């Protein structure tokens, strides 16, 4: 009986040790994967996400990697560029007018006012224009105010100022976008480029009062080449600035990633620089440079002399097809 148990026991021991040896043999050679394998840092740098108890925004990702040159791009390039687009362009234009003089109407005002813009056109212009001016000033404060303004005022005043700038910037965005959308869609048909626009560009619209450009009056339709350039720049960069602005203004709706938000910030600034520079030119042209130009966006009518001098093709056309309408 005892012997019998011994034999069974021995058999069992041999069996199990054989299985054990076989297992040991099979696991040798193939290297066991090590728990972390030195990869944690590279995984985190590559933006690995994980599990966390926190409900904070983006909290499941330890590190969000992006191109850090964005930071220098904003502070060293975009901020000075926007400042230059506003103040630099004003200085350049003032100097230009001092040297060159303005564009006078030949033979003075005729006193006869020609219908050019409807009341609706004038109102959508100002719907976009007034917010645009406020957006430029507050946007400049937000992008570059800390560099050129904050050092000269007190902490409390600066805090109030920059907060007001943000509020105005946020709320003026809506009427601006409305004005942009209406102007872009309703006015586009008069802004299509024509061959004579090239000639207009060659003589800079005839606004230069010296050298070979003096006294030139290039052809222009309802809009001249310069106005067309401004229109299309405004249409394109207005779209970019509106789209990027919406991302930043309604993070709750669009839920952009952090990197996308930074890209939106850069695109917003670049568009702002272009629109600002164009706006300054546009304002100077309308108010100072082109005598009689401002009247168009006040009453919607322009002087007959102004129409024939600056928009001869349009004036000829409306005379011909009978749509010429005088103010009574």
């Amino acid at each position, binding site marked *: 009986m005892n012997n019998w148990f011994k034999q069974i026991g021995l058999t069992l021991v041999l069996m199990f040790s054989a299985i054990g040896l076989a297992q040991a043999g099979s696991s040798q050679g193939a290297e066991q994967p090590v728990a972390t394998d030195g990869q944690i840092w590279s995984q985190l740098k590559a933006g690995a996400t994980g599990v966390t108890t*926190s409900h904070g925004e983006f909290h499941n990702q330890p590190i969000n990697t992006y191109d850090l040159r964005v930071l220098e791009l904003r502070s060293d390039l975009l901020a000075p560029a926007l400042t230059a687009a506003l103040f630099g362009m004003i200085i350049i234009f003032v100097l230009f007018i001092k040297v060159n003089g303005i564009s006078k109407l030949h033979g003075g005002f005729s006193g006869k006012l020609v219908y050019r813009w409807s009341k609706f056109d004038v109102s959508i212009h100002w719907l976009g224009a007034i917010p645009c001016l406020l957006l430029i000033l507050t946007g400049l404060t937000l992008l570059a105010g800390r560099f050129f303004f904050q050092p000269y005022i007190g902490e409390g005043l600066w805090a109030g100022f920059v907060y007001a700038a943000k509020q105005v910037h946020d709320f003026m965005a809506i009427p601006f976008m409305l004005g942009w959308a209406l102007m872009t869609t309703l006015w586009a048909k008069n802004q299509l480029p024509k061959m004579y626009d090239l000639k207009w560009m060659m003589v800079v619209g005839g606004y230069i009062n010296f050298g070979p450009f003096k006294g030139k009056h290039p052809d222009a339709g309802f809009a001249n080449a310069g106005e067309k350039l401004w229109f299309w720049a405004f249409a394109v960069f207005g779209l970019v600035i509106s789209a990027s602005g919406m991302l930043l*203004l309604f993070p709750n709706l669009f839920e952009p990633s952090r*990197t996308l938000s930074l890209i939106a910030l850069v695109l917003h600034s670049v568009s702002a620089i272009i629109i600002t520079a164009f706006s300054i030119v546009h304002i100077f042209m309308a108010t100072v440079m082109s005598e009689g130009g401002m009247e168009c966006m006040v009453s919607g009518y322009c002087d007959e002399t102004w129409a024939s001098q600056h928009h001869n093709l349009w004036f000829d056309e409306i005379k011909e097809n009978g749509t010429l309408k005088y103010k009574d």
Partner: protein
Amino acid sequence: MATMKFLCDTKRCIECNGCVTACKNENDSALEWGIQRRRVVTINDGQPGEASISVACMHCTDAPCQAVCPANCFYKTEDGLTLHNKDTCIGCGYCLYACPFGAPQFPKKGAFGSRGKMDKCTFCAGGPEENHSDAERQKYGSNRIAEGKLPMCAELCATKSLLAGDAEIISSIYRERVAYRGSKNAIWG
């Protein structure tokens, strides 16, 4: 002058969230509902290569939040900490976009960028208000640094995974640990 830093040893972090609780408790006076200054993230959870790491503001020397802030509300302390002034903060959210660590948090996420005042880890060093004043406690929480103490999260870390202190000191502690572990797999990366 010291340069204060956090360091989390992933070989020691056991995802107990003690640091999270310690932070929440210590700075409760300043924390609006839903704000969590420190969190523990576990990558590869339940798989080979699982690792937990405690994350909060890393008090960058070259802080991206400071670089993008339109209101310029960030400042560096003499201990090398990156702190901010909530009275100047306009709640635009740019710091949240720029911070690689997701440290800045806002009480709200509304339309028109109405996010409220940003809140983040202060290294338990309060803010620009007078040390231990009511205003400081209400806006920024505790100020242990002014008492010569280290942040609560690191002080209460049970495994001493989360280290806080002068960069040179904590890195030498960590280097020593790695040397004792004696394996190339025992280092952080």
